[in-house]
């Protein structure tokens, strides 16, 4: 049965349907952020502990970061399962996915540049840029995510990451605690990923 109605009712229906679709957009986005937050914060603290135990010049301690490879695989599996269950695809969700894929590629390119630079110029000081660079890129990605979702804890998280990046590089010059930047990274992951991730899930509930 086709029902005709007034222009006010038309407008109301359009608004209701658009809002219904928009509300679905924010569902369940916190889980991956929380997972990455806990794992990276644990790895950073683990790396700090290993530096204290084995010394900063032992290259084996950095192998702990290879654990991010299974994390990438687990994330890809979670995302693909979620996509299979998803009934609707939003432009904003696609933009966010592209942002984080672009972020992952940029981090890989930046790491390649830094390691290549360190080898070419035979300068181990370049390694001091690794953490600040990753933190500032992460700050950009989480800040933009927060702005797109209109979710302030992610926006503040971005600011925490940018501050952390500056603290890291200054700390490399003036702090005399070996592996200090890993503590900063862990704090950034807690404030920028774990806390906002939980807040997002709570908002969803």
């Amino acid at each position, binding site marked *: 049965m*086709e029902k005709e109605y007034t*222009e006010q009712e*038309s407008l109301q*229906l*359009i608004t209701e349907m658009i809002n219904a679709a928009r509300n679905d957009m924010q569902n369940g986005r916190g889980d991956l952020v929380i997972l990455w937050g806990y794992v990276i914060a644990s790895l950073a603290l683990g790396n700090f502990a290993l530096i204290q135990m084995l010394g900063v010049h032992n290259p084996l301690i950095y192998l702990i970061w290879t654990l991010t490879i299974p994390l990438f695989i687990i994330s890809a599996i979670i995302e693909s399962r979620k996509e299979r269950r998803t*009934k*609707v*695809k*939003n*432009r904003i969700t696609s933009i966010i996915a592209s942002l984080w894929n672009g972020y992952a590629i940029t981090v890989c390119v930046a790491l390649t540049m830094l390691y290549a630079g360190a080898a070419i110029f035979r300068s181990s000081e370049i390694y001091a840029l690794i953490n600040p660079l990753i933190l500032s890129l992460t700050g950009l990605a989480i800040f933009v995510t927060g702005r797109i979702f209109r979710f302030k804890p992610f926006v503040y998280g971005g600011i925490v990451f940018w501050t952390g990046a500056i603290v890291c590089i200054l700390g490399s010059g003036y702090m005399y605690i070996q592996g200090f930047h890993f503590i900063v990274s862990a704090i950034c992951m807690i404030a920028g990923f774990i806390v906002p991730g939980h807040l997002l899930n709570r908002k969803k509930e």
Partner: protein
Amino acid sequence: MFKDLNPLLHVQQRLAIMSILISVEEADFSYIKEKTAMTAGNLSSHTDKLSSAGYIDIIKGMKGKRPRTVFKITSAGIDAFEEYVNSIKTYINRSSD
């Protein structure tokens, strides 16, 4: 009264479908059915009309082992929807004058 309004869109069910599709990249059959609270037969009939007018694309495929129907608004559909909304605004402005 509504002679300028697109008669294809000025039907509650089809307007609801178009309003959802204008907000998303694509949506599957069950999603639209759930949001619009229509029966499957009713939804099929309205989406067929929208598809015949070139306002939406109907993509039939498989999701795992299950058949899946996905709807996507076309550029002609976006134009028609925008024109419809502008017409409504004109009516509302006229009646408030």
